């Protein structure tokens, strides 16, 4: 039984697309500062990068608030159940048109691999980027005028972590963009993130899960 279910709410979609835009923009300006290419002009790139960084931080603050006030943070609780099955699916099943091993529901939108990946992004990569980015902005040099207590000898250390995070994010974006196409149909995931609605198995038209199996997953 398949029904159109309202799975991504408006803030979630706004957050997602805003974040997507900012990551692309930060990557473009950031790698110009890194010296990989020139497009905006170095000084503009620095200027835009800083503004986008502030915007990103504001967005993150709102997203954190949203996740906790709605309880959506539970979506990212890691689970190892079905993890093996999910890996097998991407390595084998997907080619044979096998069904998705994890049922997507409003209460559990993410498969175990997604849970782990997004949790890693939220707890590791994004914090590393935000902290190293803020240090980049506010740490002036070993001594005077900066964050005196930090005593970091060179901006090189900060830059190392910030650049490393950027590479990881780009790799993530590449894989993420590809995996969009692995939904029920090639465009169903994309449509869902744009409109908020997705055809999901085992839901009634109000989006309430009526499948026992998926409810179990939610309680992990």
């Amino acid at each position, binding site marked *: 039984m398949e029904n159109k279910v309202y799975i991504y*709410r*408006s*803030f979630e979609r*706004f957050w997602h697309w805003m974040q997507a835009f900012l990551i692309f923009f930060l990557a473009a300006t950031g790698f110009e*500062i*890194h*010296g990989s290419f*020139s497009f905006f002009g*170095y*000084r503009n790139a*620095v*200027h835009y990068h*800083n*503004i986008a960084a*502030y*915007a990103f931080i*504001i*967005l993150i603050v*709102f997203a954190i*608030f*949203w996740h906790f*006030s*709605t309880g959506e943070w539970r979506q990212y609780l890691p689970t190892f159940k079905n993890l093996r099955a999910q890996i097998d699916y*991407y390595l084998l099943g*997907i*080619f*044979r*048109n096998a069904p998705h091993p994890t049922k997507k529901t409003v209460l559990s939108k993410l498969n175990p691999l997604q849970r782990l990946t997004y949790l890693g992004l939220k707890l590791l990569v994004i914090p590393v980027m935000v902290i190293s980015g803020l240090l980049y902005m506010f740490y*002036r*040099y*070993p*001594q*005077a*005028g900066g964050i005196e207590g930090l005593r970091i*000898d*060179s*901006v*090189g250390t900060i*830059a*190392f972590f910030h*650049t*490393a995070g*950027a*590479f*990881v994010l*780009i*790799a993530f974006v*590449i*894989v993420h*963009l*590809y995996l969009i*196409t692995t939904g029920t149909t090639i465009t169903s995931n994309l449509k869902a993130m744009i409109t908020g609605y997705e055809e999901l198995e085992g839901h009634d038209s109000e989006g309430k899960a009526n499948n026992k199996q998926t409810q179990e997953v939610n309680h992990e």
Partner: protein
Amino acid sequence: MKKIIISLTLTGLVLVAALSVLLPDEKGSTSLDILKAKYQGKKGRVADHSRYDILKQNFSDPRQVTKACLTCHTHAAGEIMQSNHWNWERPEYIKGRGIVYFGKKNAINNFCIGVEGNEQSCAKCHIGYGMSSAKNFAFNDSLNIDCLICHDNTETYSKGTEKAGMPGAGLDLANIARHVGKPKRSNCGVCHFFGGGGNNVKHGDLEKSMFEPARDVDVHMASDGANLQCVDCHTTKQHTISGKMYSLSSMNHNRAYCEDCHTARPHDDDVLNKHTLKVACQSCHINTYAKVNATKTNWDWATAGDLRNGEPYEVDDKDGNHTYLSIKGSFTWGKNLKPDYIWFNGTAEHYLLGDKFSDTTKPLVLNTLNGSYNDRDSKIIPVKIHTARQPYDPVNQLLIQPKLFAPEKGQGAFWKDFNWQSAASTGMKEINLPYSGKLTFIKTEMYWPVNHMIATKEKTVACTECHNSSNSRLAQLTDFYMPGRDHSSFLEFAGTGIIMLSLAGVLAHGGVRIYHRRKMKQENSNGK
């Protein structure tokens, strides 16, 4: 709940928009406007000296002028006698040496090498009369002070060549004495533009075009711009002038800074202001030096002394710069040069006459400017590096101060006799240093901070001239990480690696999916 979220979202958007608008755009700096207004009015008016009775006399001797000046300016002589313009030395604390009296009087450089023994010629730029020998000069006789070389506002006063600082012939001293005032660019420039024996030989950023510079040569002194005089920045108290040259000074005091007028945070852009902690203003605001006329970049004394038919000769390039002089050797010149950059904390060390120096495999640096990235007082400054080969005594391991100038032949002066042996033995004897009789030439370097010829805003050094990995202006400064210039090769490799792997992974995965999908479609249609 939905309403709350939507309103929060909107607030966020508004905040983002507000931030991007509020973060400053390029616009005229208020502080710059204030400065422009401050220096707009004609400054430094002095009393009309032509009305003073004591100056209404016919001066035949310049010392009489000095005497007349001192009748009113009763403290001036005492102040002058404290100054390094007068003493040609000042007390400097040098690490490892203690207090050293150091200056033109006893310094060694890699241009005309040194003053000692050659005062008759060199004292043309001393603010005194008759210093034919610094050893025997009466530094305590106030009538020896040459007030006019700095204070003549008629631009007619000048000192004679090889006259130990006495004025040239045929000057109307009476008229000059009645038209004195604050020093102008012409007063300072007549010495400081010609150091080293010719226009722009030494500094590179101080030369005759700066008498009346165009705006694209120097934005401050431009006669069609702010028209600042030297002493507007080199502020002076009791005849002690701020700002000094590190070819001759060692301590970090009494300096003249751009920040004195412009403050340490002069830009509207905070990212630019952050630079001022580690980068001196000059580093970005002087794109090139020797903008109008060439400056000497290398001086090879080893070729000096070649004669044609027993006579000294000169060879000039197409711009009229000497490329060879029998008395001085061969020269290399450069115009519109990009500075070199070094860390500098305001202190310097010097090679002093009599210092032993044995490692001649690398150039001997005559003035080491101290500094490094990790030193909190250090900033990156632009410098001109002047290289030379100059005479050296390999037995005593000393740089040689040769006798260069003498009025007559046969007194040991190289410029008359062209004999290194007699020049070296006479020169070293005059400063009481040994000479072994063996003379070679070694490479030396001097570091000349470039502080003038400030470019217009449009020609300021752009970000990517330093922040790039292939030809950064700061390529020589490797003791710190600079975004855009430096990369961790490990991280670049790993980062590009994981991006490539991700790409390859998704392409392969996608390819296999497409292949299987087609195969299944075929099977389905075959099955039918």
